[in-house]
């Protein structure tokens, strides 16, 4: 193996790589998906009931409702617009406040309001919105609560918002698209165009070619992993440890990419392997998406040992002692994959000669 030749090949990868579709996709897709999740999924899986209001007067109830944490309040200009929103499920319940609503309730006059309810709205959401409206009206009329309340939280911990649960998926995608797919497609492309055979006729060895492609994939994978964590403000309090874990994950991705590149002959097969293998790689994500799934299921999959330390460090304020065992397992997996890459390269040499 010649470091000089590896450097030249790496330079070629850097020069031509950014024109490659997979390279662009590896950079763009995680960023777009991350933004998409932050903007849409952050509120998509919110369990807050949603109230729609059409205010035909200028009731104080609307700004009061909008300040609440327990209910999301959306104001609509017309009744038909609001009914449409209820029918689509954009809000659970829509109410129309008639002109002079505030003065009527303050004077104790009996008022009738219509509530449009989305058929698929959960019963608890209907209850919460109902009592919230009643509570707001009482506040509007200046009624004093007949009780005092003290809220006590039992134990430690906190609820996990959906955009945090989705972070492992985006991080894995960032690490594996660049780390796995880039070297794999690059090798397969060289095979299909017969340039790999041409290369190994020169003093360049198959190891030089694979190493240069691996380094390229590793750099992209690590940078994308860091970028995604920075974009999601999830770099935590242990940036060095987190970078180390990402680097180990990038190595795993690159090794898998090299093995794939060596074994797979064409893009059709590569695509089919990705179709299935992608599901295996991303399986641990479901443990974080749905905490009801037992954690041991996640442990079956190798990427769990990458994701658990990342989640622990970035979201749960963990330290080395919380991730040490899994990091050692990750290192072990990386070493096993190194051995497999070596064996694979031997096979690739045979192919090249």
């Amino acid at each position: 193996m010649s470091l000089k030749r590896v450097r030249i090949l790496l330079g070629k990868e850097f020069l031509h790589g950014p024109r490659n579709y997979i390279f662009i996709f590896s950079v763009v897709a995680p960023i777009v998906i991350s933004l998409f999740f932050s903007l849409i999924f952050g509120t998509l899986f919110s369990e807050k009931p949603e109230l729609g209001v059409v205010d035909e007067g200028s009731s104080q109830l609307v700004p009061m409702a909008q300040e609440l944490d327990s209910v999301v309040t959306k104001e609509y200009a017309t009744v038909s617009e609001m009914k449409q929103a209820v029918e689509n499920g954009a809000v659970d319940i829509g109410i129309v406040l008639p002109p002079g609503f505030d003065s009527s309730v303050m004077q104790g006059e009996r008022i009738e309001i219509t509530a449009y309810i989305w058929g698929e709205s959960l019963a608890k959401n209907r209850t919460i919105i109902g009592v919230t409206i009643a509570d707001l009206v009482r506040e509007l009329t200046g009624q004093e609560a007949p009780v005092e309340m003290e809220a006590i939280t039992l134990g430690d911990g906190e609820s996990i918002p959906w955009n945090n649960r989705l972070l492992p998926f985006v991080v894995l995608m960032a690490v594996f698209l660049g780390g796995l797919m880039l070297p794999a497609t690059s090798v397969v492309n060289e095979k299909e165009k017969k340039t790999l055979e041409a290369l190994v006729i020169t003093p360049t060895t198959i190891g030089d070619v694979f190493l240069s492609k691996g380094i390229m994939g590793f750099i992209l994978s690590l940078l994308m992993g860091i970028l995604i964590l920075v974009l999601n403000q999830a770099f935590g309090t242990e940036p060095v440890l987190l970078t180390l874990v990402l680097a180990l994950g990038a190595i795993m991705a690159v090794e898998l990419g090299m093995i794939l590149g060596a074994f797979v002959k064409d893009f059709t097969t590569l695509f089919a392997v990705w179709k299935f293998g992608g599901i295996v790689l991303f399986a641990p994500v479901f443990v974080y998406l749905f905490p009801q799934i037992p954690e041991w299921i996640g442990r079956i999959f190798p990427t769990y040992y990458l994701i658990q330390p990342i989640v622990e460090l970035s979201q749960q304020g963990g330290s080395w002692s919380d991730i040490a065992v899994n990091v050692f397992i990750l290192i072990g997996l990386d070493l096993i994959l190194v051995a497999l890459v070596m064996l694979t390269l031997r096979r690739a040499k045979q192919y090249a000669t």
Partner: protein
Amino acid sequence: MNWRIIGTLVAKDLSLFFRKKLIVALTALGLVFYLIIYFVMPSSVNENLEIGLYAPVIPPVFELVQEEGLEIEMAESEEALKEAVAEGQYIAGVVLPADIMEQFQSGQKPKIILYFTPDAPQEIKDAVEVLIRELAYLQAGQTLAIDISEEILGPDMVGMPIPPRDRLRPLLAIFIIMMEMLGLANLISEEVERHTAHALLVTPMTVIDLFVAKGITGVGLAFVQAVLFMSIVGGMSGQPLIILVALLLGAVLVTGVGFIIAAVSKDFMSVLGWGVLSFIILLIPSFSVIAPGTITGWVKIFPSYYLVDTVHRAANFGSGWGDVGVNLLILLGFSLAILWIGITVLRRKFQ
């Protein structure tokens, strides 16, 4: 059109597909994993606020409350209540003082303690506080002078909410169909790249025969997998014929898209590029089922909306032909139009 030639070509494509044992195995395993995804998703929705109550003296309002979506269960002691809350049996625990009724009568403010689990979201904490306060108002005799008349829009699903995994069902079925779109586009693109398509056209086979054969292969592979998936996950139990027709039209639609992708692509990379773009666009309407209300009326410009909506309504609500007939007609129109565009652009490429 020569059906014998078409049959031979379909048999050749299928034999090529099944000859690659790895691809067959991975396709089958892919299907198994989609099924696993479905089965590990939550199969039920807890649509009630389950609150534990410890009260040495139970105020009548708390005892009689029969609010929809609210379940109040009595605990034997404050310690038992705290334990039950900590174990997640209740979303909140409420402790009323022993002299609550006397305090109400004397105009004093009784102190109520609320226990929450550490992972209870803030909105739930606020909601339970509001709820208990409202019950206290009622117990104190402070009723509201507001009458609320309710109008339910759409089928009322209280008591039978759709579990997340059933909401995901149309998305997964369509995902399977669309994956085959990429496979078909690649199959044709390879034929063009290797010039085997041109070689075939030298034989008595016509361009139409070639398209019909590729179409049958594409539709068949996508349709069979999607039907198999829907059958296993119980999606065919309500309106099987409607689901079958919808999936068939969906398979025709993605075959048309596959033709267009094959026509504009030069190699696998461009198939992947255009394919993923089409994939994302066609997948957008699925979010209207997974998270209703996040996507508004503009989603109807996507042909896949009519497929997603039909599968969702037929599988999850048991909607009949009268309810989804228009959807199916629009889907048929879109599918035929896109297939025609696909054939036209691909024919130009061959010529």
